[in-house]
């Protein structure tokens, strides 16, 4: 069982500097594909490199299969890493690159050959085995880097932004290959670092979203740990709500009027609005934030749900959909985005009425922490 436990892990690069990782508590189950995601500077690579053994752990304990790893050398942890820049040995052929790790470990030649051949078959590197890295394309180099990890048959695969150097088309293809690889290998856990939430949503069994800046010390590094659907439908805080989803969730300042078990009433932009959120525990009259995703807002002068009158500022037509940036008159300079069908034609300056349903509303308390939603949601 290749379970990975992070127990109250902290990382401080030098005394006097703020914590890079603060109080990280996670359990990654056997065979899970776990994605670390977050804005730049959130320490996601640092967290990965601590698992690899390339960074020291300031305090706390890292366990793989229940064994303490803190002091163990990288090569003895049963992990293999795929670097962002591939980091292939330029003077070795593809086959030698893949065999090098096993050779250092002292495996015998027949065994090395067998494992390298197997990995080459999985990754379709057969015809390239005698080439040097400089004679390979970016995508091929990436596959060799993955092959170098596979031959070691590690308990844990570590990927450090492996797709960020590839062009868009290749990125989608390699993303599928990595997902397939995870499915085929099955027994190994994978930790994958990315700043791209599409990669996170599509690949992950579990996502770890990390805080950045001051929030690291205030609330700990982990903003939310859960399935992709959890993070999308039940963001734990304004920070998570703003990161997951593209375009990001609209949030508006509001005042809580009343709270019941299944519904809360708030005042937004001078309107009474219903939200399917359990906001009991927050005093009536307190300032809160409500959130609504751009894809859950629609345009309509009549119909059900709450309505807000707005003015269109700017429109981005993507073909399949259009993004409308509107002025709600509240919420300061923050833009309010609406995602509508691509056939909708509007011109800037036009007035319109936006509507949304109570069951699509999110509600965050004064600290920016979410209250539980009371509707059935996909998991």
């Amino acid at each position, binding site marked *: 069982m290749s379970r990975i436990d992070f127990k109250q892990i902290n990382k401080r690069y030098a005394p006097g500097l703020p914590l890079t990782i603060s109080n990280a508590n996670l359990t990654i189950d056997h065979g899970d594909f776990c994605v670390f995601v977050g804005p730049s500077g959130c320490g996601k690579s640092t967290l990965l490199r601590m698992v690899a053994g390339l960074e020291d752990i300031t305090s706390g304990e890292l366990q793989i299969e229940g064994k303490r790893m803190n002091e163990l050398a990288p*090569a003895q942890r049963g992990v293999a890493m795929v670097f962002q820049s591939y980091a*292939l040995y*330029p*003077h070795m052929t593809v086959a030698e690159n893949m065999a090098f790790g096993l050779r*250092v470990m002292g495996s015998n030649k027949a065994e090395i050959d067998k494992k390298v051949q197997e990995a080459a078959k999985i990754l379709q590197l057969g015809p390239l085995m005698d080439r*040097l890295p400089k*004679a390979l394309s970016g995508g091929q*180099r990436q596959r060799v880097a993955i092959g170098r990890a596979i031959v070691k048959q590690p308990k844990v695969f570590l990927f450090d932004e492996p797709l960020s150097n590839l062009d868009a088309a290749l990125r989608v293809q390699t993303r599928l290959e990595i997902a397939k690889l995870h499915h085929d290998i099955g027994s190994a856990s994978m930790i994958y670092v990315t700043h791209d939430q599409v990669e996170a949503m599509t690949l992950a069994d579990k996502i770890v979203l990390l805080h950045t800046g001051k929030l690291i010390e205030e609330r700990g590094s982990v903003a939310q740990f859960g399935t992709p659907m959890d993070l999308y439908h039940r963001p734990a805080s304004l920070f998570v709500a703003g990161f997951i989803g593209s375009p990001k969730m609209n949030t508006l300042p509001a005042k809580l009027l009343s709270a019941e078990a299944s519904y809360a009433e708030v005042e937004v932009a001078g309107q009474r609005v219903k939200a399917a959120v359990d906001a009991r525990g927050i005093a009536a009259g307190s300032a809160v934030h409500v959130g609504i995703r751009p894809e859950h807002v629609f345009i309509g002068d009549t119909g059900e749900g709450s309505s807000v009158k707005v003015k269109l500022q700017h429109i981005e037509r993507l073909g399949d959909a259009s993004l409308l940036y509107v002025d709600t008159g509240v919420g300061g300079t923050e833009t309010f985005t609406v995602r509508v069908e691509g056939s909708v034609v509007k011109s800037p300056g036009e007035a319109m009425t936006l509507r949304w349903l109570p069951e699509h509303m999110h509600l965050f308390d004064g600290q920016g922490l979410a209250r539980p939603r009371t509707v059935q949601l996909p998991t």
Partner: protein
Amino acid sequence: MKQNPWYLAMLYVAAVVVSLFSIFPFVYAISTSLKTGSELFNPSLWPNNASVANYISLFTVAEQPFGRHLLNSIMVSTAVVVLSVFLGVTAAYALGRIHFKGKALLLITVLAVSMFPQVAVLAGMFEMVRALGLYNRAFGLVLPYMIFTLPFTVWVLTTFMKQLPKELEEAAIMDGCGPWRIIGEVFMPLLWPALVSTGLLAFIAAWNEFLFALTFVTDNDQRTVPVSISLISGASAFEIPWGKIMAASVVVTVPLIILVLVFQRKIVSGLTAGAVKG
């Protein structure tokens, strides 16, 4: 874009002129070394009666064991290169890849060593060479020669070492390599151009060195070739044996030319191509 043919022609003419200018002294040395007797005073480039007598006498006069001196030089220079490159690579790994306090100061200190002219360190060096029992031994020259080979070896290799991608080292660490294996199996193959050029420069510097060789070695059997050439004497005190001196010069130049020709193909850039996304 098509090059102007006149421009190209001028370029080639200039190249030929520069080549002739730099090769001419050597050609003239070869020509002189093939002349004997009063022929020496004939300025023509092509000797009338070419003879290898000068070369033969170089290796046959018992008081001046030129062959022995040549072997001494080869031994000393090779030892200097091997030691300098070994110390240079290991020092460069520490200075280029590991963070520690006082690194910049240490690098400046290394460079400062090469600041002093040889004459300034001669007296002190003499005492040290004697105290270590290296006086009058050809091999004892290896130590003083490192004064001028190590600073540039360390500096050049440190610069190259710093340019190697960090991920490469980390990948090697993940593959289970210790520092020696990282240096030997991952970094050294990538440092070939730097190793060859610094090694060649160190070899040439040690090969040509005169002052230390003259001061620290007085035993006739232990001399190196630069001193040996300066001591070549003619039949009488008033005769300068130009023919023999030129023959010796040609003999000591040839190994350097061969070395450079053999290793120049190793001095190619782009060895790290393909390691990381550029």
